[in-house]
C-alpha cells in the first residue's frame, strides 16, 4: 500500500515536471517560460520527494530529503524573481498579443 502510494506520487510529480518542460519549449517569450518552469518544477520536486520519503520510511535520511523541499521552495522562488527582475530592468519587452511573434 505504501509502495503503491509512493509510486503514484512519483508519477504525479513526473507529470508536473514534464508539463514544465513542455511549457519551456512551447511558450512564446522569456517571461511566460519563467512562469511555466518555476512553479511546475517546484511542485514536481515536492511530490517526487514525497514519494521518496514514503519509500524510505521515517529516518534521518528522510528528514534530509524533506529539507531539500524547503531549500528548493526558497531557491526556485528567489531565482525566478531575480531572473524576471533582471530581464525587465535590462529592457526585455514582454510579448503581447498585438505583435506577430516573440521579441528577440
Amino acid at each position, binding site marked *: 500500500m505504501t*509502495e503503491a502510494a*509512493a*509510486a503514484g506520487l*512519483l*508519477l504525479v*510529480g*513526473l507529470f508536473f*515536471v*514534464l508539463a*514544465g*518542460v513542455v511549457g*519551456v*519549449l512551447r511558450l512564446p517569450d*522569456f517571461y511566460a*517560460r*519563467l512562469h511555466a*518552469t518555476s512553479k511546475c*518544477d*517546484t511542485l*514536481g*520536486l515536492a511530490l*517526487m*520527494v514525497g514519494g*521518496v520519503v514514503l*519509500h*524510505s520510511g521515517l529516518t*534521518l*535520511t528522510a528528514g*534530509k*530529503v524533506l*529539507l*531539500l523541499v524547503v*531549500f*528548493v521552495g*526558497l*531557491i*526556485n522562488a*528567489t*531565482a525566478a524573481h*531575480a*531572473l524576471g*527582475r*533582471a*530581464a525587465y*530592468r*535590462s*529592457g*526585455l519587452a514582454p510579448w503581447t498579443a498585438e505583435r506577430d511573434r*516573440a521579441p*528577440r
Partner: protein
Amino acid sequence: MNDVVLVVIAALALAMGLSLYRVLAGPTNFDRLTGISLIGTKSMILLLLLGIRAGKLDALVDIALSYSLITLVSTMVLAKYLERPGVPR
C-alpha cells in the same frame, strides 16, 4: 516500485535533454539561465532516485542538498551580472 523508479529516471533524463534545447537555442541569455536551473532541479530528483535504485540514498542526499545551494548562488550571481547596463542580453 523498482520498475516505476526506472521509468521515472528514464523520463527525467529525456526531460533534461529537452531542457538542454532551451539552453543551446534560447534567444536571450535569461532563457539559457532558466534552462540551466531547470536541469539543476531535475538532477536533484535524479540523484535521489539513483540513490534509491543503488541503495545509497543517505550518501546521495547530501550531494543533492549541496547542489541545490550551489544552484542558488550561481543563478543569483549571473542574474545580478545580466542586470547591469551594457551586458548583451
